[in-house]
């Protein structure tokens, strides 16, 4: 205690000069047991204060902030996933709608084509029948005309034969025998 003042201020060399700490007996400060009680008491007080601050205020606060951020990120990701799912579902619905519309269009087209084909077929058939009927009528007319013409030919032939015979022989032939001769030649 006595030598400490002079030792610290003086220009004497000496690696372990005691500083003007006054009341310590010389030596290495970390091993001075007189300071232990003060250090232990202050450490106990401040460490307990720190522990209480840390456990009651600081960690819940910072942990809460980190957790809130985590929740926010997870919520946002979930929201994004939900929106993505929604858009996927909308896309799927759109594609389904498109496919069914296409199928419906195809069906309508086929149906219309078939209906038109059937109609055309029916019209064609009716027309053919009509034509066939007309043809048959025309053939009948031709046949009757021919018959008439033939019978006229017979009459004309009989007249002509009668006249020819009269001119050649001067005898008027019997109309009945002329007709018979003509019939015979027409058949022959």
């Amino acid at each position, binding site marked *: 205690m006595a030598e400490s003042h002079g030792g*610290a201020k003086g*220009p*004497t*060399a*000496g*690696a*372990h*000069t005691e*500083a003007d*700490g006054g*009341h*310590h007996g010389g030596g*290495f*400060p*970390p*091993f*001075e047991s007189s*300071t*232990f*009680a*003060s*250090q*232990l*008491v*202050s*450490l*106990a007080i*401040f*460490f307990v*204060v*720190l*522990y209480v*601050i*840390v*456990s009651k*205020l*600081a*960690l819940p*606060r*910072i*942990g*809460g*902030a*980190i957790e*809130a*951020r985590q929740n*926010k990120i997870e919520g946002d990701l979930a929201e994004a996933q939900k929106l993505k799912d929604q858009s996927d579902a909308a896309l799927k619905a759109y594609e389904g709608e498109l496919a069914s519309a296409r199928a419906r269009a195809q069906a309508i087209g086929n149906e219309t084509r078939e209906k038109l084909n059937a109609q055309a077929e029916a019209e064609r058939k009716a027309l053919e029948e009509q034509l066939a009927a007309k043809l048959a009528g025309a053939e009948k007319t031709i046949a009757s005309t021919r018959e008439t013409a033939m019978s006229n030919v017979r009459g004309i032939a009989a007249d002509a034969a009668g006249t020819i015979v009269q001119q050649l022989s001067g005898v008027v032939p019997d109309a009945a025998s002329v007709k018979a001769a003509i019939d015979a030649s027409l058949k022959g």
Partner: protein
Amino acid sequence: MTIDPIHQFNIEPLFTIGHIGNHTIAFTNSSLYMLVAVAVISILMLASGTQLVPGRLQSVAEISYEFVATMIRSNAGAEGMKFFPLIFSLFMFICVSNLVGIIPYTFTVSSHLIVTAALALLVFFTVLIYGVYKNGLKFFKIFVPHGVPGYILPLVMFIEILSFFLRPVSHSVRLFANMLAGHIALKVFAGFVAMLGVSLGAIGWIGGVMPLALTVALTALELLVAFLQAYVFAILTCIYLNDALHPGH
């Protein structure tokens, strides 16, 4: 001119608080720097915002939180999170007081064995009491490793028990010695600069460049050591607590 590298470790009473028995309890420079450490930690953890996008201070607070939380989870498992406030307090207290101690003319709380020993004993008794409370006598399985042949088991058990009770010693001396030695080395090299300049004049000033450069490098090293020793102290606490949480492997 002499520079005493030990002077920085002196405990100076600032005022007396009271008496316990025949011990005088004083508010010392050590108490002041403990208060500074507690104040710095409180400001960091309480004044930082709790924004969704953190600012600088909030980032530091959150990184500290995540750092300690990850350390506990990977070394003591999820059950270790019970001790999160304790380990966080230990880590931040040691880290901040070490870092503050690097500033010239300040005092380093953890350069005193009594402080580191008190912290190490706190961890030791936490492990011991919680281990016995949670596991009962099964806790003492940590002294009986698996797969050891019977005839060397007594020897192994003796070594295990010895190492268990020496834990607080190594735990505290490691931190104390690192901080003490680092600060002495810094002070010695910084002292060379001044001594050379004063005693040798111009040549001394030029010669002082070398120890000055070394002081700068040592300061950087001490910054690393200040953090690293806090980390080592905290991670050893986690490993010791792991024994209390999961004895028998």
